[in-house]
C-alpha cells in the first residue's frame, strides 16, 4: 500500500536521509521511531509529496507521491507534527472547510469522530489548548476515510483517556483494512496498535522489526519490596540481574524472561511490586549501540 524506496535527500547543511526503504502493507499499522532530528519528519514530508527526493521515490497504491501529486491526495490523511490552522476560524468552521476541500459530502463520519474525541468545536482556534487542536487535527486527518493515514506524533497533548480513545479508533480503522503510518514516542501506544516498526537514526533506517521482537527487547525494571530482610539476601543469590538495593527494596532488570523472575519472586513474602518501563528511544538506542559494538 505504501512503499518507500531508496529515498535519499541531502540538505545544504549536510543533514538529510539516506536510502530509506520500507513498505507498509494494506491494513497494517506501522510505527516510525527515532530520536529527534533523525529524519522522521523529512521522510514523512516525502511521503506527503511536500519534498522532491534527490533519489528514490514514495509510492502509495502505485502512485508516486511527488509526480502524481493531486491524484494521491484523496488516498492520504495527514496529521502534521506541529499543529497550525488557518487563523480566524472556529474548529467547526475549519473542519467544514476541510470537508469541502476534501470533497466530503457525508458529515456523519466526521460527527462520529468529533463525538468520540469529545471537544467543543465552536471554540475559536486561537483559544484552543494544544490537546484540543490535536483533536481537531485528528478529525481532519481521518474524516474523509483515507486509505492511508500518516500521523506525526498523534497523541502528543492528549490526556490518557483520549489516548485510549485514539488507540481504539486506530484499531477499528485497521480492522476495516485501513493503513497507518505513525511516529510516536509512547511505547504503550505503539505496543497496542502497531504490527511492525521502523527505527531511523542519523538519516538511515537501522531496523524494521516485528512489534513482538521489540517487546522482548524492552528491558523492564521491577522494584520488589520484601517483608523480610533475610529474604533479600537469598533473592540476590538467585542470579537474577539486580540493578540496585536499598534495605528491603530491590530493583531487578528483566528482559524477556518474565517467567524466571515471577518464579523466583513467588518464593518470598512480598509487600509490593512496581514496574518501570524504559522509554522507547532508549531501548532501541541501547540495543543498537550494543549491537554495533559487538559486531
Amino acid at each position, binding site marked *: 500500500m505504501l512503499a518507500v524506496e531508496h529515498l535519499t535527500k541531502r540538505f545544504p547543511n549536510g543533514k538529510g536521509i539516506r536510502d530509506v526503504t520500507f513498505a507498509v502493507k494494506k491494513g497494517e499499522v506501522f510505527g516510525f521511531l527515532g530520536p529527534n532530528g533523525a529524519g522522521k519528519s523529512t521522510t514523512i*514530508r516525502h511521503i*506527503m*509529496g*511536500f*519534498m*522532491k527526493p534527490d533519489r528514490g521515490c514514495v509510492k502509495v497504491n502505485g502512485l508516486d507521491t511527488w509526480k502524481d*501529486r*493531486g491524484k494521491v*491526495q*484523496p488516498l*492520504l*490523511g*495527514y496529521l*502534521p507534527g*506541529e*499543529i*497550525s*490552522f*488557518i*487563523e*480566524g*476560524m472556529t474548529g467547526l468552521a475549519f473542519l467544514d*472547510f*476541510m470537508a*469541502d*476541500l*476534501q*470533497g466530503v459530502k457525508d458529515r456523519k463520519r466526521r460527527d462520529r469522530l468529533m463525538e468520540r474525541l469529545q471537544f467543543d468545536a465552536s471554540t475559536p482556534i486561537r483559544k484552543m489548548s494544544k490537546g484540543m487542536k490535536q483533536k481537531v487535527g485528528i478529525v*481532519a*486527518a481521518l474524516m*474523509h476515510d483515507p486509505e492511508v493515514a500518516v500521523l506525526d506524533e498523534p497523541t502528543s497533548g492528549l490526556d490518557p483517556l483520549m489516548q485510549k480513545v485514539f488507540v481504539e479508533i486506530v484499531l477499528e480503522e485497521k480492522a476495516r483494512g485501513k493503513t497507518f503510518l505513525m511516529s510516536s514516542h509512547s511505547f504503550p501506544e505503539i505496543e497496542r496498535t502497531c504490527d511492525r516498526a521502523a527505527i531511523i537514526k542519523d538519516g538511515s533506517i537501522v531496523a524494521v522489526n516485528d512489534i513482538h521482537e521489540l517487546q522482548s527487547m524492552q528491558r523492564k525494571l521491577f522494584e520488589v519490596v520484601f517483608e523480610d530482610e533475610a529474604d533479600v539476601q537469598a533473592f540476590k543469590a538467585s542470579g537474577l540481574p539486580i540493578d540496585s538495593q536499598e534495605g528491603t527494596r530491590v530493583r531487578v532488570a528483566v528482559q524477556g524472561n518474565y517467567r524466571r523472575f515471577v518464579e523466583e519472586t513467588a518464593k518470598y513474602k512480598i509487600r509490593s511490586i512496581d514496574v518501570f518501563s524504559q522509554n522507547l528511544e532508549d531501548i532501541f538506542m541501547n540495543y543498537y549501540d550494543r549491537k554495533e559494538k559487538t559486531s
Partner: protein
Amino acid sequence: MNAVLYRQMLKVNLKPFLNYALGSAFYILLMFWLYPGVAGNAAAIDSIIRSMPEGVGRAFGLTGFGSAEAFISGEYYGLILVLILAVVCVQLSTQLMARLVDQGAMAYLLSARATRGQVACTQAAVLVTGLFLILAVTTLAGFAGNAWFLKGDYDFDTGKYVQMNAAAFLLFFAVGGISFLVSALSNDEKKASGISGAIAFGFFSLDLLGKFSDRTDWLRNLSLFSLYRPDDIIRGAADTELAFPILTAVGLAAFALGIVLFRRRDLPL
C-alpha cells in the same frame, strides 16, 4: 483555482479588505468635500506651490489645483494611496503564502484534494481580488463625492479619473505579483515580508528621489513606480499605451513564476 479555498480565503480576509477600502473611500470623500473651499483659493495655493523648490512639488505630485481630479491626484494618488496599497500588497501576499507555509497550515490545504498549482493560483486570485476591491470602492467613492459635493459646479474629468485608478490598479498588480513571487518562495514569514517590503518601498523611494531633481532623474528608470504617473494622466501627458502593457506583463510574469516555482519547491510542512 479552487472555489472552496477562494471563498474561504475571501471570508477570512474580507474584513481587512473592507477596512482599507472604506478608509480609502472616506479619504476620497473628504478630499471632495474640501475641494470647493480649495478651488476658491486655487490661484493663491498655486502660487504657494510655485514658491516651493521645484523638485518638492514635482516629487509629491502637486500639479496645481485647477480641477478636482488634479487636486485629488496630488493629495491622494500621488502619495497616500500608493503607501496604503504597498502595505496591502506586502502584508497580504505574505499572509496568503509564506505564513501558511511557515506556520504549517499549508499542509492541510495540500493534503486535501487541492494541488499546489491550484492553491497558488487561488491565493494569487485572492490578492488580485483584494486590490481590485479596494480600488473599485475608492473609484466609486470618487464618483459619489463628485455627485454629492461638486454637483457639477466644478470641473471633474471622469475619463481621466478612471484612467488614474486603472493605472494605480495595474501598478499594484505588478507590485503584488512581485511580492507574491517572494512570498511563494519563502519558508519564513518575516523574511518574506522583509524582502517584499524592501522591494516595494525601494521602488517607491527610487521614484521619489528621482523626481526631486533632474540630476537624480535616472533613478526613476530603475523603479516600476515611474510607470505610474497620475499627474501626467491629469495633464493628458501620460504614456499609458506603453505603461499599462508593461505593468500588466510584469504582474502576469511574476504571478506565473511564483505559481510555477511554488509547484516545484520543497516545503517544510
